[in-house]
């Protein structure tokens, strides 16, 4: 990872190939959350707070084991608890909810502030609060309800995938704290292989015949992937969207409308200028003497 940051991809005025290219492995980082082995201990919630320096905040009791209804600006990692009736009886689902670090990040696409959101080559999508203006367009663009606004600082916060730890060659804090091994961290390739292996095992050896991996294509894949008991029902894991996408209107706004608006404004100003060049001003008719 740390070497990867200074790896040369292209050289100016240089004939031939790039020396050293491909010597070290290019990789995207990825978190794997195996919901089938999560026991809901919330060690990852605590580790996240500790590493990121947030005090444990007020919780909300709503007759479940869940710490609060959804993640907060200072609570980026939340286990979502859900009880589901199945043919084989009651199923208690637990899912670690956090930023998914989309390959096509809706937050970044929607953000107007220069440098407030960055995506690293390793796939981490990170907020830089120094440049954040608090408009919350990121909230508009996110299909996972992740960015959260702090009314006091007027900035938006979310999981960094421990970019500070990953940059130093460490695994994210949540991964480090997991006692069951339900959380894994590595390259996207390795994590996908592990996830597929696990879901194959579930299908083969358990009653979860529809087990599968959650790596939604709608946002180009994510850098947090899940193994689910039933890949067709992600919604029952505390509202994981089945087919998350960057909202259509965000794409229209940041695509055609921006283009059309820019061209239209230039054409409009040029158009009226050409009108003046062609027709000039209207004359006031002073010939007819005003009768007093």
């Amino acid at each position: 990872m740390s070497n990867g940051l200074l790896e040369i991809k292209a050289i100016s005025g240089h004939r031939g190939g790039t020396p050293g290219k491909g010597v070290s492995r290019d990789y995207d980082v990825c978190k794997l959350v195996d919901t089938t082995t999560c026991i809901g201990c919330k060690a990852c919630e605590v580790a996240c707070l500790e590493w990121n320096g947030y005090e444990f905040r007020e919780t909300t009791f709503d007759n479940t084991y869940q710490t609060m209804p959804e993640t907060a600006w200072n609570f980026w990692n939340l286990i979502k608890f859900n009880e589901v009736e199945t043919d084989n009886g009651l199923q208690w689902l637990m899912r670690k909810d956090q930023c998914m670090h989309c390959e096509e990040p809706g937050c970044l696409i929607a953000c107007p502030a220069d440098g407030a959101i960055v995506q690293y080559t390793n796939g981490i999508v990170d907020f830089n609060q120094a440049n954040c203006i608090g408009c919350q367009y990121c909230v508009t663009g996110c299909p996972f309800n992740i960015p959260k606004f702090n009314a006091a600082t007027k900035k938006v916060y979310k999981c960094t995938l421990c970019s500070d730890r990953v940059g130093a060659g460490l695994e994210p804090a949540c991964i480090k704290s997991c006692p069951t091994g339900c959380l894994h961290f590595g390259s996207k390739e390795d994590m996908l292989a592990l996830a597929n292996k696990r879901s194959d095992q579930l299908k083969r050896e358990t009653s979860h015949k529809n087990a599968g991996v959650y790596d939604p294509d709608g946002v180009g894949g994510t850098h947090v992937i899940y193994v689910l008991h039933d890949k067709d029902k992600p919604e029952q894991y505390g509202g994981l969207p089945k087919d998350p996408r960057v909202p259509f209107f965000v794409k229209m706004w940041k695509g055609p409308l921006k283009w059309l608006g820019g061209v239209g404004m230039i054409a409009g100003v040029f158009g009226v200028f050409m009108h003046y060049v062609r027709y000039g001003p209207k004359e006031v008719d002073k010939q007819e003497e005003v009768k007093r």
Partner: protein
Amino acid sequence: MSGSTLVRPTAVTGEEQLQRYTFVERAYHWINAIAYTYLLLTGLALFTPILYWLAYVMGGPGTMRWLHPWVGLVYAFTIWWMHGKWKRDMKAIPQDEQWNKNVKAYIQHHDEVMPPQERFNAGQKQFWWIMFYCTFILLVTGIIMWFPERIPREIHWLLPITVFIHSATALITIAAFIVHVYMSIWVTPGSTKAMIEGNVSVSWARTHHRLWYERITGRKG
């Protein structure tokens, strides 16, 4: 309705002057214009990265995000005030139909075929109603965008549509704004002076707003 609206002759031409806008009307117009300009420049900064530098000119990105909605309220309020003041003048009159039909001739300055117009011509009325309705849309969408954190999660799907409508509506006002500024400064000399000093010459009034001229002076032709 005569006498009182006639004011002093100007020193230069010695021509009779008519009051076109009262001081309060002018004040509201310019508060509105300054607010719109601020909203335009900060809105463009938020609209495209190419113009994000405008954010730094307009007080810095954070300040801009804080101030834009407040200035928006000022803008909407002055539009509302002008609506109260001008809504009667903005109503369509029978002659407007022919004016709209001949708009091409108006653009090409063949004004001899244009029907006589009241205080505002049909084009100005169109401009006004575009701005009026767009302001309403901008206000409603803008208030939603002001406090997205207060919008319940169940209706978050509204946010992208809201932002899109806000931007698209703003673009419509920009198109109207370009024509408005161009017309008043370059096409009809005397208009900007009317909005700043309040007066127009009698011949200006007769040329551009014959019916209005006849109404307030009580003269014919």
